[in-house]
């Protein structure tokens, strides 16, 4: 399937800063794919998103959206994009409906039936002034304005921020529908469970550089399990620590966290040589994977 968004060796320096906010970032997102973009605060997620939307200009490198250049064809590109900013800023004096109709008039109109569906699904309060709404209700309006175009490409920065679990489900459902329609979705999120649930690919960005990219399934496959083991004596604990097949850290004298170094079978063989009183498997998740990348940075 064709790439809907391509970031090619993208670099961005902000004026007065010697370090790049984004450094040689290359990402490709296909139509019908949901791409989760993870990173700590200041890692470069929002800068990347703002480059895609052409709010800021790259120092070098190039972005194409549906084959069009993000700078030269920015107006044409925006006919195909739905965008939600992180911590969405909306004008406070107008109602949600007035805002949505104004935005629709800038884009040549929208499908009012679909807008009505989104309004109903998200239980949005479109007839109250935005300034009187809670953060969650403002976020719903932000989401509706991003989704109401039924765009080919959606760029969403922390989309479920402030939404209750019920509305998060509605959002996941809307993303699922968009994906079935063939839309490409690029979203940044702080929720690992959300990314694991709805994304096909993930990219982890650290200090402006992509440090990991792969499918969510591949993250799960490469994980080595962690076992929490309680042994019967200090001698057994010492035996495990000496084993070259295991990476061992103490929780207490007899309680250890054990992780295979090379293979699970050789690790089990090493464990079989001591008397184990209890053993539990700790399930790693995407958050652990994410933290491992950031811990590597701390050890450098």
């Amino acid at each position, binding site marked *: 399937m064709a790439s809907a968004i391509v970031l090619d060796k993208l670099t961005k320096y902000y004026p007065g800063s010697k370090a790049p906010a984004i450094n040689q970032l290359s990402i490709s997102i296909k139509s019908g794919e949901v791409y989760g973009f993870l990173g700590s605060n200041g890692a470069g997620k929002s800068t990347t998103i703002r480059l895609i*939307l052409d709010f*800021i200009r790259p120092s070098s490198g190039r972005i194409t959206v549906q084959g069009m250049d993000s700078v030269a064809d920015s107006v044409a590109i925006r006919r195909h994009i739905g965008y939600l*900013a992180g911590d969405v*800023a909306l004008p406070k004096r107008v109602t949600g409906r007035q805002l949505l109709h104004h*935005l629709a008039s*800038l*884009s040549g109109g929208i499908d009012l039936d679909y807008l009505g569906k989104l309004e109903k699904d998200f239980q949005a309060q479109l007839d109250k002034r935005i300034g009187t709404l809670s953060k969650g209700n403002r976020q719903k309006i932000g989401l509706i304005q991003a989704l109401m175009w039924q765009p080919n490409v959606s760029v969403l920065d922390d989309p479920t921020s402030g939404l209750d679990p019920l509305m998060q489900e509605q959002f996941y459902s809307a993303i699922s529908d968009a994906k079935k329609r063939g839309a490409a979705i690029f979203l940044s999120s702080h929720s690992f469970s959300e990314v694991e649930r709805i994304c096909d690919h993930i990219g982890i960005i650290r200090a402006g550089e992509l440090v990991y990219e792969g499918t969510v399934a591949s993250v799960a496959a490469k994980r080595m399990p962690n076992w929490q083991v309680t042994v019967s004596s200090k001698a057994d604990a010492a035996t495990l620590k000496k084993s070259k097949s295991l990476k061992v850290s103490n929780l207490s004298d007899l309680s250890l966290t054990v992780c295979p170094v090379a293979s699970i079978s050789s690790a089990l063989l090493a464990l079989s040589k001591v008397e184990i009183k209890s053993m539990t498997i700790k399930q790693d998740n995407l958050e652990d994977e994410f933290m491992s990348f950031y811990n590597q940075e701390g050890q450098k």
Partner: protein
Amino acid sequence: MFTLWWSIGVSVLVSITILSFLAIKDEAAQLNQALSGITDTAGSFLGGSDLFSPIGYLNSQIYFILLPILVIIMTVNLASSLMSKDESDLTVELVLSRPVSRNHLMFGKLLAWFTILFTVFVVSYGVAAVCVKIVDMPINQWNLLLTHAISFIFSASFGLIAFALTAVSRFTRRIAGVIAIVFSLGGYVISSLSGFVDGFKFIAKLLPYHYYDTVQMLSGKVDLGLVIYLVGITAVALVAMSVGYSRRDIG
């Protein structure tokens, strides 16, 4: 609300000032004679030493300094607000995420700025024209319209400078209002002093206030230097804001 309050404010000040002429109308000649000893320096800050003839009164009390200062503050403030507010609170991203070009957005704001300015001009001119009739000033209405209009356009040119500086780059955006106000009021002070301080004579010729002669305008004439400045600054500002805003980072 901005338009309404500024229209009311400017109109009230203009009307009170013109209607006050009734109190001195009959003693204008004697008052001018009594103040003939006014220093040239003080006179130059008021636009001349004739303070009480109908033209001298309108010049010194309204068109030389009061109206320009009010309109400069209004237009600079409005320009900075229109260009900066949605960028600082990031609501500009909502509009720019739609198929709207940066220049389309910027010239839309410029049109809003001009519309507000034009509304305040129309209201305040209407009030000034009526008040001039009430106090029976022997002023040609066309000349009054010309002076009122040029006074607004001249003052608005500093707002346009603020508009352009705000649009050109993120750095100049922060200092646009200050530069426009300093350029306008500094120009007024230097031009007023240039008759007495030799060092200011050349600099004054480079400043727009030097060519802003409202006594001439109330007599139906406009200095060519002022026309050249107004056309030139408008052209430079439009080109600078169009090029700058379409290239710089937003937000």
